[in-house]
């Protein structure tokens, strides 16, 4: 099932994804403020919505500084990679029947591959900055994302077993009877935690831990290159929320409302949830994070896979 108007789909998804990523800056600041009993940006335009425009203008006006000690070409390339890889993942994301750029039959694997490639951005940024704090941030990011990638993939295999396909459209269609969050609750919890770690958001923002590493891998960045990392982060947040919607909460499926609206509603619910998590949880120590990943999450994901496999086998 491909889109009847491919160019329209591409433009639509690209525009909506990028607008959402920019708008999330406003949404996150407003929501964090709400949960801290403040107002947040509310002075520029209605509800402060034009704050995004003001921030955008400001960040483009900033001096685009490349430190003389940095590895110039890699330094410039790194922020582009993160945005590129995340945007690539949106290509296989089914928003609604007919609104999808490319319905790959290995869509889920493609998403996992792209989020793995995203690690390069962070590692190269940290390395090319030639700054010990940046390098430490890059190293932490690499270790964190690689170890959380492993059980993220395994946690999703339960869904693939139930749906019988790697195609995201087929996975949504398989949830017509029951959303996968119920039979795959453990997988859902594991995926949410792994998703948080993949997007490097608080509580798992150890690669950019302000209190320890200045700003981690993007310490040396300024202007729009710095902005690109944030666009990438917010795109990643949108992607993970959209993936949770597609994989566990039936994507566009829902009564009364049009499918696109259902998809957006569910996605924004999870985006808000991730922001709530950021508002409430402190960041763990790095060794705690690693031992959690390998000693708790990975075995749990394996158990989940084995049990799901056994149940599916017994059922058929």
């Amino acid at each position, binding site marked *: 099932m491909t889109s009847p108007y491919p160019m329209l789909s591409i433009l639509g998804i690209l525009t909506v994804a990028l607008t959402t990523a920019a708008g999330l800056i406003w949404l996150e600041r407003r929501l964090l403020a*709400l*949960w*801290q009993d403040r*107002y947040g940006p509310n002075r520029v335009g209605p509800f402060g919505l034009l704050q995004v425009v003001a921030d955008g203008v400001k960040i483009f006006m900033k001096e685009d500084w490349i430190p003389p000690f940095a590895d110039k070409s890699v330094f410039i390339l790194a922020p582009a990679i993160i945005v590129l890889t995340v945007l690539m993942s949106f290509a296989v994301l089914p928003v609604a029947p007919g609104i999808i750029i490319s319905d790959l039959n290995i869509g889920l694997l493609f998403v996992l591959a792209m989020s793995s490639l995203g690690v390069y951005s962070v590692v190269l940024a940290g390395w090319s900055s030639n700054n010990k704090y940046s390098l430490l941030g890059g190293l932490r990011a690499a270790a964190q994302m690689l170890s959380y990638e492993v059980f993220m993939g395994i946690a999703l295999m339960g869904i693939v077993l139930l749906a019988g396909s790697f195609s995201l459209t087929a996975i949504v269609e398989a949830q017509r009877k029951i959303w996968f969050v119920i039979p795959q609750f453990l997988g859902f919890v594991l995926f949410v935690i792994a998703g948080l770690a993949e997007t490097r958001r608080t509580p798992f923002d150890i690669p950019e831990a302000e209190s320890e590493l200045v700003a981690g891998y993007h310490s040396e960045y300024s202007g729009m290159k710095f902005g690109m990392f944030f666009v990438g982060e917010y795109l990643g947040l949108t992607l993970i929320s959209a993936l949770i919607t597609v994989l566990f909460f039936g994507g566009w499926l829902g009564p009364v409302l049009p499918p696109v609206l259902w998809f957006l509603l569910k996605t924004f619910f999870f985006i808000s949830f991730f922001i*709530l*998590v950021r508002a409430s949880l402190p960041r763990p120590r790095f060794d705690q994070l690693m031992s959690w990943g390998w000693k708790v999450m990975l075995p749990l994901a394996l158990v989940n896979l084995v049990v799901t496999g056994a149940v599916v086998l017994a059922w058929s």
Partner: protein
Amino acid sequence: MLSILKGIWYVFLHTFQKRVTVQYPDEKPYLAPRYRGRIILARDPDGGERCVACNLCAVACPVSCIALQATEDEHGRRYPEFFRINFSRCIFCGFCEEACPTYAIQLTPDFEMAEFHRQNLVYEKEDLLINGPGKYPGYNFWHIAGVQIGGKDKGQAAHEAAPVDVHSLLP
């Protein structure tokens, strides 16, 4: 694990709580009458300057932001020739107000003093003087000071008794 979920839930409950922010330029915060803000120089109820240029405020000032020059008028009363407060240095501690023997220097509930040029933060005497007695309406230092001035000796002014002769035992 449960404590993490509990924490998230408690933060979520803040959705329904009142926000503590005071939307400042639109709604002004309440400032107590004794708020330590912009410094003024008060006048007597009959309109004369209270300041007697004793320099105590300048001495008390921990950041040395007060500068003044004493002089005398035709009746022999002291008053400041110039009185200068550099508000870019002032820390609004209120020590000058405490030190002042004549209630002349007072701090007021006003903090909106922002300027674009630092030089504009240096207030001269005409910027500091107000047309009223400030926080102490009935007080007139010269009426109770017992200081002689040109034309009147001690004890000859209104509401004054003659000074006691300490060398005599007679009542």
